[in-house]
Protein backbone atom coordinates (compact mmCIF):
# COMPACT_ATOMS: atom_id res chain seq x y z
CA UNK A 1 0.00 0.00 0.00
CA UNK A 2 1.30 3.39 -1.01
CA UNK A 3 0.89 6.64 0.87
CA UNK A 4 -0.02 9.74 -1.15
CA UNK A 5 -0.46 13.18 0.39
CA UNK A 6 -3.40 14.10 -1.81
CA UNK A 7 -5.51 11.81 -3.97
CA UNK A 8 -7.84 13.51 -6.39
CA UNK A 9 -10.75 11.45 -7.65
CA UNK A 10 -11.58 12.70 -11.12
CA UNK A 11 -9.45 14.49 -13.73
CA UNK A 12 -12.12 16.88 -14.97
CA UNK A 13 -12.09 20.65 -14.49
CA UNK A 14 -12.46 20.45 -10.68
CA UNK A 15 -9.83 17.78 -10.16
CA UNK A 16 -7.28 19.38 -12.46
CA UNK A 17 -7.70 22.84 -10.92
CA UNK A 18 -7.41 21.42 -7.41
CA UNK A 19 -4.29 19.46 -8.32
CA UNK A 20 -2.55 22.43 -9.88
CA UNK A 21 -3.38 24.69 -6.98
CA UNK A 22 -2.25 22.11 -4.41
CA UNK A 23 1.10 21.84 -6.17
CA UNK A 24 1.40 25.62 -6.14
CA UNK A 25 0.71 25.54 -2.40
CA UNK A 26 3.69 23.25 -1.98
CA UNK A 27 2.03 19.84 -1.85
CA UNK A 28 4.28 17.68 -4.01
CA UNK A 29 2.88 14.21 -3.51
CA UNK A 30 -0.35 14.33 -5.54
CA UNK A 31 -2.11 11.70 -7.63
CA UNK A 32 -5.10 12.20 -9.92
CA UNK A 33 -7.22 9.12 -10.66
CA UNK A 34 -9.26 9.45 -13.86
CA UNK A 35 -11.59 6.80 -15.28
CA UNK A 36 -11.41 8.03 -18.89
CA UNK A 37 -8.54 7.54 -21.35
CA UNK A 38 -7.61 11.22 -21.13
CA UNK A 39 -8.08 13.90 -18.49
CA UNK A 40 -10.48 16.79 -19.13
CA UNK A 41 -13.77 15.28 -18.06
CA UNK A 42 -17.05 16.21 -19.67
CA UNK A 43 -15.44 19.29 -21.29
CA UNK A 44 -13.93 17.02 -23.93
CA UNK A 45 -17.38 16.61 -25.46
CA UNK A 46 -18.55 20.22 -24.85
CA UNK A 47 -17.16 21.54 -28.10
CA UNK A 48 -19.23 24.75 -28.05
CA UNK A 49 -17.66 27.98 -26.88
CA UNK A 50 -18.50 30.20 -23.94
CA UNK A 51 -16.08 28.78 -21.40
CA UNK A 52 -13.36 30.76 -19.64
CA UNK A 53 -14.74 34.29 -19.62
CA UNK A 54 -14.49 34.54 -15.85
CA UNK A 55 -11.40 32.43 -15.31
CA UNK A 56 -9.31 33.54 -18.32
CA UNK A 57 -11.06 36.65 -19.61
CA UNK A 58 -11.62 35.09 -23.02
CA UNK A 59 -14.14 32.73 -24.54
CA UNK A 60 -12.98 29.19 -25.25
CA UNK A 61 -14.47 25.88 -26.31
CA UNK A 62 -14.69 23.11 -23.71
CA UNK A 63 -11.72 21.13 -25.07
CA UNK A 64 -9.57 24.30 -25.15
CA UNK A 65 -10.55 25.22 -21.60
CA UNK A 66 -9.71 21.71 -20.39
CA UNK A 67 -6.44 21.66 -22.32
CA UNK A 68 -5.17 24.73 -20.46
CA UNK A 69 -5.45 22.81 -17.19
CA UNK A 70 -4.16 19.55 -18.66
CA UNK A 71 -1.07 21.29 -20.05
CA UNK A 72 -0.49 23.08 -16.77
CA UNK A 73 -0.77 19.83 -14.81
CA UNK A 74 1.62 18.18 -17.27
CA UNK A 75 4.15 21.00 -17.01
CA UNK A 76 3.99 20.69 -13.21
CA UNK A 77 4.50 16.93 -13.69
CA UNK A 78 1.45 16.06 -11.62
CA UNK A 79 0.87 12.31 -12.00
CA UNK A 80 -2.49 11.31 -13.41
CA UNK A 81 -3.51 7.67 -13.79
CA UNK A 82 -6.06 7.45 -16.60
CA UNK A 83 -8.26 4.44 -17.41
CA UNK A 84 -8.43 4.05 -13.65
CA UNK A 85 -11.68 3.72 -11.71
CA UNK A 86 -11.91 4.28 -7.99
CA UNK A 87 -13.96 1.43 -6.52
CA UNK A 88 -14.02 2.35 -2.88
CA UNK A 89 -13.05 5.08 -0.44
CA UNK A 90 -13.00 4.25 3.26
CA UNK A 91 -13.59 6.72 6.11
CA UNK A 92 -9.93 6.32 7.14
CA UNK A 93 -8.95 7.56 3.68
CA UNK A 94 -7.95 4.37 1.95
CA UNK A 95 -8.62 4.43 -1.76
CA UNK A 96 -9.10 1.28 -3.85
CA UNK A 97 -8.81 1.71 -7.60
CA UNK A 98 -8.52 -0.60 -10.58
CA UNK A 99 -7.01 -0.31 -14.02
CA UNK A 100 -6.03 -2.73 -16.75
CA UNK A 101 -2.47 -1.50 -16.67
CA UNK A 102 -1.84 -1.34 -12.92
CA UNK A 103 -4.34 -3.87 -11.58
CA UNK A 104 -5.92 -3.34 -8.17
CA UNK A 105 -4.33 -0.49 -6.27
CA UNK A 106 -4.72 0.56 -2.67
CA UNK A 107 -3.57 3.96 -1.45
CA UNK A 108 -3.54 5.61 1.91
CA UNK A 109 -4.20 9.31 1.40
CA UNK A 110 -3.33 12.29 3.55
CA UNK A 111 -6.31 14.04 2.02
CA UNK A 112 -8.86 12.99 -0.58
CA UNK A 113 -10.37 15.46 -2.99
CA UNK A 114 -13.67 14.34 -4.47
CA UNK A 115 -14.06 15.75 -7.97
CA UNK A 116 -16.33 13.20 -9.66
CA UNK A 117 -18.69 15.77 -11.20
CA UNK A 118 -22.30 14.94 -11.89
CA UNK A 119 -24.51 12.69 -13.97
CA UNK A 120 -27.73 13.29 -15.85
CA UNK A 121 -31.22 12.63 -14.59
CA UNK A 122 -32.78 9.90 -16.73
CA UNK A 123 -36.14 8.97 -18.16
CA UNK A 124 -36.71 6.48 -15.35
CA UNK A 125 -35.96 9.02 -12.65
CA UNK A 126 -38.79 11.23 -13.87
CA UNK A 127 -41.05 8.28 -14.81
CA UNK A 128 -42.04 9.33 -18.32
CA UNK A 129 -44.87 6.99 -19.36
CA UNK A 130 -44.93 5.04 -22.61
CA UNK A 131 -43.07 2.31 -24.44
CA UNK A 132 -39.30 1.73 -24.40
CA UNK A 133 -38.06 2.14 -27.97
CA UNK A 134 -34.55 3.08 -29.10
CA UNK A 135 -34.09 6.78 -29.74
CA UNK A 136 -34.47 8.19 -26.23
CA UNK A 137 -31.18 9.75 -25.17
CA UNK A 138 -30.07 12.05 -22.41
CA UNK A 139 -28.50 15.22 -23.81
CA UNK A 140 -25.04 14.30 -22.57
CA UNK A 141 -25.15 10.85 -24.14
CA UNK A 142 -26.33 12.34 -27.44
CA UNK A 143 -23.50 14.86 -27.16
CA UNK A 144 -20.92 12.11 -26.55
CA UNK A 145 -22.13 10.12 -29.56
CA UNK A 146 -22.17 13.15 -31.86
CA UNK A 147 -19.04 14.99 -30.72
CA UNK A 148 -16.77 12.13 -29.65
CA UNK A 149 -17.95 8.99 -31.44
CA UNK A 150 -19.05 10.39 -34.82
CA UNK A 151 -22.48 8.79 -34.55
CA UNK A 152 -25.64 10.68 -35.36
CA UNK A 153 -28.42 9.64 -33.02
CA UNK A 154 -31.42 10.81 -35.02
CA UNK A 155 -32.96 13.08 -37.61
CA UNK A 156 -36.22 14.40 -36.21
CA UNK A 157 -35.83 15.49 -32.65
CA UNK A 158 -37.88 16.60 -29.65
CA UNK A 159 -36.05 17.94 -26.63
CA UNK A 160 -37.54 17.66 -23.16
CA UNK A 161 -36.11 20.10 -20.65
CA UNK A 162 -34.49 23.45 -21.24
CA UNK A 163 -31.26 22.75 -19.38
CA UNK A 164 -28.18 24.29 -20.99
CA UNK A 165 -26.98 21.00 -22.49
CA UNK A 166 -30.42 20.38 -23.98
CA UNK A 167 -30.45 23.77 -25.69
CA UNK A 168 -26.84 23.36 -26.82
CA UNK A 169 -27.74 19.97 -28.32
CA UNK A 170 -30.74 21.54 -30.08
CA UNK A 171 -28.33 23.86 -31.90
CA UNK A 172 -25.71 21.16 -32.39
CA UNK A 173 -28.13 18.72 -33.99
CA UNK A 174 -29.62 21.45 -36.17
CA UNK A 175 -26.14 22.30 -37.45
CA UNK A 176 -25.71 18.63 -38.35
CA UNK A 177 -28.87 18.55 -40.40
CA UNK A 178 -31.38 17.20 -37.88
CA UNK A 179 -34.78 18.81 -37.57
CA UNK A 180 -35.39 19.91 -34.00
CA UNK A 181 -39.12 20.30 -33.63
CA UNK A 182 -39.05 22.02 -30.30
CA UNK A 183 -37.81 22.24 -26.74
CA UNK A 184 -40.41 21.57 -24.03
CA UNK A 185 -40.00 22.66 -20.43
CA UNK A 186 -42.27 21.62 -17.58
CA UNK A 187 -41.47 24.73 -15.52
CA UNK A 188 -42.96 28.11 -16.47
CA UNK A 189 -39.40 29.38 -17.14
CA UNK A 190 -36.32 28.12 -18.98
CA UNK A 191 -33.99 26.16 -16.71
CA UNK A 192 -30.84 27.08 -18.66
CA UNK A 193 -29.20 30.45 -19.21
CA UNK A 194 -31.04 33.19 -21.17
CA UNK A 195 -28.12 33.53 -23.61
CA UNK A 196 -28.60 29.89 -24.61
CA UNK A 197 -32.30 30.46 -25.25
CA UNK A 198 -31.17 33.27 -27.54
CA UNK A 199 -28.19 31.79 -29.36
CA UNK A 200 -29.18 28.09 -29.38
CA UNK A 201 -32.93 28.26 -29.92
CA UNK A 202 -34.03 31.66 -31.23
CA UNK A 203 -31.14 31.84 -33.70
CA UNK A 204 -32.30 28.59 -35.29
CA UNK A 205 -36.06 29.13 -35.05
CA UNK A 206 -36.42 26.29 -32.54
CA UNK A 207 -39.55 26.91 -30.50
CA UNK A 208 -39.34 26.76 -26.71
CA UNK A 209 -42.63 25.79 -25.05
CA UNK A 210 -42.80 26.47 -21.32
CA UNK A 211 -45.20 24.61 -18.99
CA UNK A 212 -45.24 21.56 -21.28
CA UNK A 213 -44.06 18.01 -20.81
CA UNK A 214 -43.90 14.62 -22.53
CA UNK A 215 -46.85 12.47 -21.45
CA UNK A 216 -46.40 9.50 -23.77
CA UNK A 217 -43.62 7.81 -25.70
CA UNK A 218 -44.72 5.70 -28.67
CA UNK A 219 -43.07 3.10 -30.88
CA UNK A 220 -41.87 -0.42 -30.11
CA UNK A 221 -38.59 -0.63 -32.04
CA UNK A 222 -37.45 2.92 -32.72
CA UNK A 223 -39.21 5.98 -31.34
CA UNK A 224 -42.12 6.91 -33.59
CA UNK A 225 -43.74 9.80 -31.77
CA UNK A 226 -44.12 11.55 -28.44
CA UNK A 227 -47.18 13.16 -26.95
CA UNK A 228 -46.75 16.58 -25.38
CA UNK A 229 -49.21 18.07 -22.92
CA UNK A 230 -49.54 21.42 -21.29
CA UNK A 231 -49.18 21.37 -17.51
CA UNK A 232 -51.01 23.33 -14.83
CA UNK A 233 -49.55 25.35 -11.95
CA UNK A 234 -48.76 22.11 -10.09
CA UNK A 235 -46.96 20.75 -13.15
CA UNK A 236 -49.73 18.18 -13.75
CA UNK A 237 -50.68 17.53 -17.41
CA UNK A 238 -53.93 19.19 -18.46
CA UNK A 239 -56.27 16.65 -20.14
CA UNK A 240 -57.29 17.67 -23.63
CA UNK A 241 -54.05 19.53 -24.41
CA UNK A 242 -52.25 16.46 -25.81
CA UNK A 243 -50.47 16.92 -29.10
CA UNK A 244 -48.59 14.15 -30.90
CA UNK A 245 -45.26 14.87 -32.61
CA UNK A 246 -43.75 12.38 -35.04
CA UNK A 247 -40.06 12.07 -34.29
CA UNK A 248 -37.28 9.47 -34.14
CA UNK A 249 -35.39 10.98 -31.23
CA UNK A 250 -36.21 12.31 -27.79
CA UNK A 251 -33.39 14.13 -26.03
CA UNK A 252 -33.73 14.61 -22.28
CA UNK A 253 -32.18 17.57 -20.52
CA UNK A 254 -34.00 17.26 -17.22
CA UNK A 255 -31.37 17.98 -14.65
CA UNK A 256 -27.98 16.99 -13.30
CA UNK A 257 -27.29 15.09 -10.10
CA UNK A 258 -23.99 15.19 -8.18
CA UNK A 259 -22.23 11.82 -8.56
CA UNK A 260 -21.58 10.88 -4.95
CA UNK A 261 -21.62 7.09 -4.63
CA UNK A 262 -17.99 7.10 -3.43
CA UNK A 263 -18.72 9.99 -1.09
CA UNK A 264 -21.40 8.02 0.73
CA UNK A 265 -19.18 4.95 0.79
CA UNK A 266 -16.61 7.05 2.63
CA UNK A 267 -19.27 7.84 5.23
CA UNK A 268 -19.79 11.52 4.41
CA UNK A 269 -23.14 13.02 5.29
CA UNK A 270 -25.50 14.40 2.68
CA UNK A 271 -26.80 17.94 2.48
CA UNK A 272 -30.50 17.49 1.71
CA UNK A 273 -30.60 20.87 -0.05
CA UNK A 274 -27.96 20.10 -2.69
CA UNK A 275 -28.06 16.26 -2.75
CA UNK A 276 -24.30 16.61 -2.55
CA UNK A 277 -22.16 16.16 0.54
CA UNK A 278 -22.48 18.56 3.45
CA UNK A 279 -19.29 20.65 3.56
CA UNK A 280 -17.92 23.54 5.60
CA UNK A 281 -16.26 26.72 4.36
CA UNK A 282 -13.11 24.67 3.71
CA UNK A 283 -15.01 22.32 1.39
CA UNK A 284 -14.34 19.59 3.93
CA UNK A 285 -17.04 16.93 4.16
CA UNK A 286 -18.16 15.52 7.51
CA UNK A 287 -15.27 13.02 7.19
CA UNK A 288 -12.02 14.77 8.19
CA UNK A 289 -9.56 15.07 5.32
CA UNK A 290 -12.12 14.32 2.61
CA UNK A 291 -12.96 17.39 0.55
CA UNK A 292 -15.40 18.00 -2.31
CA UNK A 293 -15.70 20.75 -4.91
CA UNK A 294 -17.19 21.34 -8.31
CA UNK A 295 -20.28 19.57 -9.62
CA UNK A 296 -19.89 16.72 -7.16
CA UNK A 297 -20.75 19.26 -4.46
CA UNK A 298 -23.47 21.20 -6.25
CA UNK A 299 -24.20 21.59 -9.93
CA UNK A 300 -22.69 24.77 -11.36
CA UNK A 301 -23.89 26.61 -14.44
CA UNK A 302 -20.37 27.65 -15.49
CA UNK A 303 -17.17 25.65 -15.47
CA UNK A 304 -15.23 28.78 -14.52
CA UNK A 305 -16.82 28.63 -11.09
CA UNK A 306 -15.99 24.94 -10.81
CA UNK A 307 -12.32 25.76 -11.34
CA UNK A 308 -12.39 28.67 -8.90
CA UNK A 309 -14.12 26.56 -6.26
CA UNK A 310 -11.62 23.73 -6.67
CA UNK A 311 -8.77 26.21 -6.31
CA UNK A 312 -10.29 27.47 -3.08
CA UNK A 313 -10.64 23.88 -1.90
CA UNK A 314 -6.96 23.26 -2.64
CA UNK A 315 -6.04 26.04 -0.27
CA UNK A 316 -7.80 24.35 2.66
CA UNK A 317 -6.73 20.85 1.67
CA UNK A 318 -3.11 22.03 1.65
CA UNK A 319 -3.56 23.42 5.15
CA UNK A 320 -5.10 20.14 6.29
CA UNK A 321 -2.19 18.16 4.87
CA UNK A 322 0.46 20.36 6.49
CA UNK A 323 -1.34 21.04 9.80
CA UNK A 324 -3.20 17.76 10.25
CA UNK A 325 -6.57 19.36 10.95
CA UNK A 326 -8.76 22.39 10.24
CA UNK A 327 -10.85 24.48 12.66
CA UNK A 328 -14.06 22.74 13.63
CA UNK A 329 -17.15 24.14 11.94
CA UNK A 330 -20.01 24.22 14.38
CA UNK A 331 -22.20 27.00 13.03
CA UNK A 332 -25.07 26.03 10.75
CA UNK A 333 -25.80 27.79 7.47
CA UNK A 334 -29.53 28.09 6.85
CA UNK A 335 -31.48 29.33 3.85
CA UNK A 336 -34.86 31.01 3.62
CA UNK A 337 -37.73 29.60 1.58
CA UNK A 338 -36.60 31.16 -1.72
CA UNK A 339 -33.05 29.89 -1.24
CA UNK A 340 -32.08 26.54 -2.81
CA UNK A 341 -28.88 24.51 -3.14
CA UNK A 342 -27.13 26.42 -0.37
CA UNK A 343 -23.47 25.64 0.43
CA UNK A 344 -21.59 25.39 2.69
CA UNK A 345 -23.74 23.58 5.25
CA UNK A 346 -21.76 24.84 8.22
CA UNK A 347 -18.89 27.20 9.04
CA UNK A 348 -16.41 27.88 11.82
CA UNK A 349 -16.71 31.65 11.66
CA UNK A 350 -12.92 31.83 11.73
CA UNK A 351 -12.14 32.03 8.00
CA UNK A 352 -13.45 33.53 4.76
CA UNK A 353 -16.57 31.91 3.35
CA UNK A 354 -18.04 31.82 -0.14
CA UNK A 355 -21.77 31.24 0.16
CA UNK A 356 -23.39 29.73 -2.97
CA UNK A 357 -27.07 29.22 -3.69
CA UNK A 358 -29.81 29.56 -6.27
CA UNK A 359 -33.18 31.21 -6.05
CA UNK A 360 -36.02 28.71 -6.20
CA UNK A 361 -37.96 30.61 -8.89
CA UNK A 362 -37.30 33.59 -11.17
CA UNK A 363 -37.44 36.84 -9.19
CA UNK A 364 -37.30 40.53 -10.02
CA UNK A 365 -36.18 43.36 -7.74
CA UNK A 366 -35.25 41.15 -4.83
CA UNK A 367 -32.87 41.55 -1.93
CA UNK A 368 -30.38 38.98 -0.72
CA UNK A 369 -29.49 39.28 2.92
CA UNK A 370 -26.92 37.34 4.91
CA UNK A 371 -27.08 37.62 8.67
CA UNK A 372 -25.35 36.23 11.70
CA UNK A 373 -27.60 36.76 14.71
CA UNK A 374 -28.72 40.37 14.57
CA UNK A 375 -25.81 41.47 12.37
CA UNK A 376 -26.45 41.92 8.66
CA UNK A 377 -23.20 40.87 6.97
CA UNK A 378 -24.26 41.51 3.42
CA UNK A 379 -27.24 42.96 1.64
CA UNK A 380 -27.42 42.80 -2.14
CA UNK A 381 -30.21 44.15 -4.31
CA UNK A 382 -30.78 42.25 -7.54
CA UNK A 383 -32.86 43.49 -10.47
CA UNK A 384 -33.25 39.90 -11.72
CA UNK A 385 -32.47 36.51 -10.22
CA UNK A 386 -32.93 33.23 -12.08
CA UNK A 387 -32.70 29.63 -10.83
CA UNK A 388 -30.34 28.99 -13.76
CA UNK A 389 -27.70 31.26 -12.25
CA UNK A 390 -25.80 30.35 -9.13
CA UNK A 391 -25.36 33.29 -6.78
CA UNK A 392 -22.03 33.43 -4.94
CA UNK A 393 -21.29 35.88 -2.14
CA UNK A 394 -17.97 36.15 -0.38
CA UNK A 395 -17.81 36.93 3.35
CA UNK A 396 -14.55 38.01 4.95
CA UNK A 397 -13.46 36.31 8.19
CA UNK A 398 -13.07 39.58 10.09
CA UNK A 399 -16.82 40.28 9.65
CA UNK A 400 -17.89 36.89 11.07
CA UNK A 401 -18.39 35.90 14.67
CA UNK A 402 -17.87 32.38 16.00
CA UNK A 403 -21.10 32.00 17.93
CA UNK A 404 -24.10 32.61 15.65
CA UNK A 405 -25.48 30.55 12.79
CA UNK A 406 -25.51 32.07 9.32
CA UNK A 407 -28.86 32.88 7.72
CA UNK A 408 -29.33 33.50 4.00
CA UNK A 409 -32.64 34.98 2.90
CA UNK A 410 -34.05 36.38 -0.31
CA UNK A 411 -37.02 38.71 -0.18
CA UNK A 412 -39.04 40.50 -2.81
Amino acid at each position, binding site marked *: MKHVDAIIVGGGPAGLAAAIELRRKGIDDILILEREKKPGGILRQC*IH*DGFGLTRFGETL*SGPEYAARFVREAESLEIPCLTDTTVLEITPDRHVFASSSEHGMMEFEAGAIILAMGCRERTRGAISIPGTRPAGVYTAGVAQAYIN*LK*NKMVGRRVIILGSGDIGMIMARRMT*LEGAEVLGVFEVQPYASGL*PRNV*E*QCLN*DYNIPLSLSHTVTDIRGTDRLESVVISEVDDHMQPIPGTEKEYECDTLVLSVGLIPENELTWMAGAEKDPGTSGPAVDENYQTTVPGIFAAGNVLHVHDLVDFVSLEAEALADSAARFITQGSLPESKLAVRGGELVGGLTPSRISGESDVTVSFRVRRPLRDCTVEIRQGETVLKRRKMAKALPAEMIQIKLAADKLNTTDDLEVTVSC
Partner: protein
Amino acid sequence: MLREFTCIMCPQGCDISVELEGKTIKGISGNKCPKGEAYVTQEIENPMRNIATSVLVDGGDLPLASVRLSGVIPKDRIFDVMAEIRKVEVPAPVHEGDVVIADVLGLGVDVIVTKDVEAA
Protein backbone atom coordinates in the same frame (compact mmCIF):
# COMPACT_ATOMS: atom_id res chain seq x y z
CA MET B 1 -39.86 51.43 -31.72
CA LEU B 2 -38.84 49.51 -28.61
CA ARG B 3 -36.89 46.26 -29.11
CA GLU B 4 -35.79 43.76 -26.47
CA PHE B 5 -32.55 41.80 -26.70
CA THR B 6 -30.93 39.10 -24.59
CA CYS B 7 -27.22 39.78 -24.69
CA ILE B 8 -25.14 36.67 -25.47
CA MET B 9 -21.72 38.19 -24.87
CA CYS B 10 -21.39 36.60 -21.44
CA PRO B 11 -23.33 34.25 -19.15
CA GLN B 12 -25.04 37.16 -17.38
CA GLY B 13 -27.42 37.38 -20.34
CA CYS B 14 -28.61 40.94 -19.72
CA ASP B 15 -32.09 41.87 -20.91
CA ILE B 16 -31.45 44.99 -22.96
CA SER B 17 -34.18 47.39 -24.07
CA VAL B 18 -33.43 49.58 -27.06
CA GLU B 19 -35.35 52.58 -28.39
CA LEU B 20 -34.92 52.48 -32.16
CA GLU B 21 -35.56 54.84 -35.02
CA GLY B 22 -34.92 52.80 -38.14
CA LYS B 23 -31.53 51.34 -37.39
CA THR B 24 -30.44 54.17 -35.14
CA ILE B 25 -30.29 53.59 -31.39
CA LYS B 26 -31.97 56.44 -29.55
CA GLY B 27 -31.84 54.95 -26.08
CA ILE B 28 -30.50 51.78 -24.43
CA SER B 29 -31.00 50.30 -20.98
CA GLY B 30 -30.50 47.03 -19.10
CA ASN B 31 -26.92 46.31 -20.14
CA LYS B 32 -24.47 46.01 -17.29
CA CYS B 33 -21.40 46.67 -19.45
CA PRO B 34 -20.39 48.29 -22.75
CA LYS B 35 -20.27 44.90 -24.50
CA GLY B 36 -24.05 44.95 -24.36
CA GLU B 37 -24.31 48.09 -26.44
CA ALA B 38 -21.76 46.76 -28.94
CA TYR B 39 -23.72 43.52 -29.19
CA VAL B 40 -27.01 45.27 -29.77
CA THR B 41 -25.51 47.62 -32.35
CA GLN B 42 -24.08 44.67 -34.26
CA GLU B 43 -27.29 42.71 -33.85
CA ILE B 44 -29.31 45.50 -35.47
CA GLU B 45 -26.77 46.04 -38.21
CA ASN B 46 -25.81 42.46 -39.11
CA PRO B 47 -26.02 39.67 -36.51
CA MET B 48 -22.75 37.77 -36.21
CA ARG B 49 -22.11 34.37 -34.63
CA ASN B 50 -19.38 31.81 -34.10
CA ILE B 51 -20.05 28.13 -34.59
CA ALA B 52 -18.54 24.97 -33.15
CA THR B 53 -18.60 21.61 -34.90
CA SER B 54 -16.25 18.80 -35.91
CA VAL B 55 -14.12 17.65 -38.82
CA LEU B 56 -13.34 14.10 -39.78
CA VAL B 57 -9.85 12.89 -38.85
CA ASP B 58 -8.19 10.08 -40.76
CA GLY B 59 -6.16 7.68 -38.65
CA GLY B 60 -6.57 9.47 -35.34
CA ASP B 61 -7.12 8.19 -31.81
CA LEU B 62 -10.52 9.87 -32.11
CA PRO B 63 -12.70 9.91 -35.24
CA LEU B 64 -13.40 13.65 -35.00
CA ALA B 65 -11.54 16.83 -34.12
CA SER B 66 -13.65 19.64 -32.73
CA VAL B 67 -13.36 22.97 -34.53
CA ARG B 68 -14.59 26.55 -34.19
CA LEU B 69 -14.12 29.73 -36.16
CA SER B 70 -11.36 32.18 -35.35
CA GLY B 71 -13.99 34.92 -35.31
CA VAL B 72 -17.66 35.57 -35.94
CA ILE B 73 -19.44 35.33 -39.28
CA PRO B 74 -22.78 36.71 -40.43
CA LYS B 75 -25.56 34.61 -38.96
CA ASP B 76 -27.07 33.89 -42.35
CA ARG B 77 -23.84 32.26 -43.56
CA ILE B 78 -23.71 29.62 -40.83
CA PHE B 79 -25.04 26.79 -42.97
CA ASP B 80 -22.81 27.76 -45.92
CA VAL B 81 -19.80 27.44 -43.65
CA MET B 82 -21.12 24.16 -42.22
CA ALA B 83 -21.28 22.79 -45.77
CA GLU B 84 -17.60 23.66 -46.26
CA ILE B 85 -16.57 22.12 -42.95
CA ARG B 86 -18.47 18.95 -43.82
CA LYS B 87 -16.21 18.43 -46.85
CA VAL B 88 -13.00 18.43 -44.83
CA GLU B 89 -11.08 15.35 -43.82
CA VAL B 90 -7.68 15.87 -42.17
CA PRO B 91 -4.96 13.32 -41.49
CA ALA B 92 -3.94 12.73 -37.87
CA PRO B 93 -2.31 14.20 -35.90
CA VAL B 94 -4.02 17.56 -35.54
CA HIS B 95 -3.51 20.00 -32.73
CA GLU B 96 -5.36 22.81 -31.04
CA GLY B 97 -5.02 25.94 -33.15
CA ASP B 98 -4.35 24.14 -36.46
CA VAL B 99 -6.17 25.85 -39.32
CA VAL B 100 -8.24 23.36 -41.32
CA ILE B 101 -9.84 25.93 -43.63
CA ALA B 102 -8.23 29.35 -44.03
CA ASP B 103 -10.49 32.31 -44.76
CA VAL B 104 -13.54 30.13 -45.15
CA LEU B 105 -15.73 31.33 -48.05
CA GLY B 106 -13.78 34.60 -48.03
CA LEU B 107 -15.44 35.60 -44.77
CA GLY B 108 -12.13 36.56 -43.21
CA VAL B 109 -12.11 33.89 -40.53
CA ASP B 110 -10.41 30.50 -40.28
CA VAL B 111 -11.79 27.16 -39.17
CA ILE B 112 -9.48 26.09 -36.36
CA VAL B 113 -9.04 22.88 -34.41
CA THR B 114 -9.89 23.03 -30.70
CA LYS B 115 -8.74 19.58 -29.61
CA ASP B 116 -5.57 17.53 -30.10
CA VAL B 117 -6.14 14.28 -31.95
CA GLU B 118 -3.05 12.09 -32.08
CA ALA B 119 -2.28 9.43 -34.66
CA ALA B 120 -3.77 6.12 -33.53
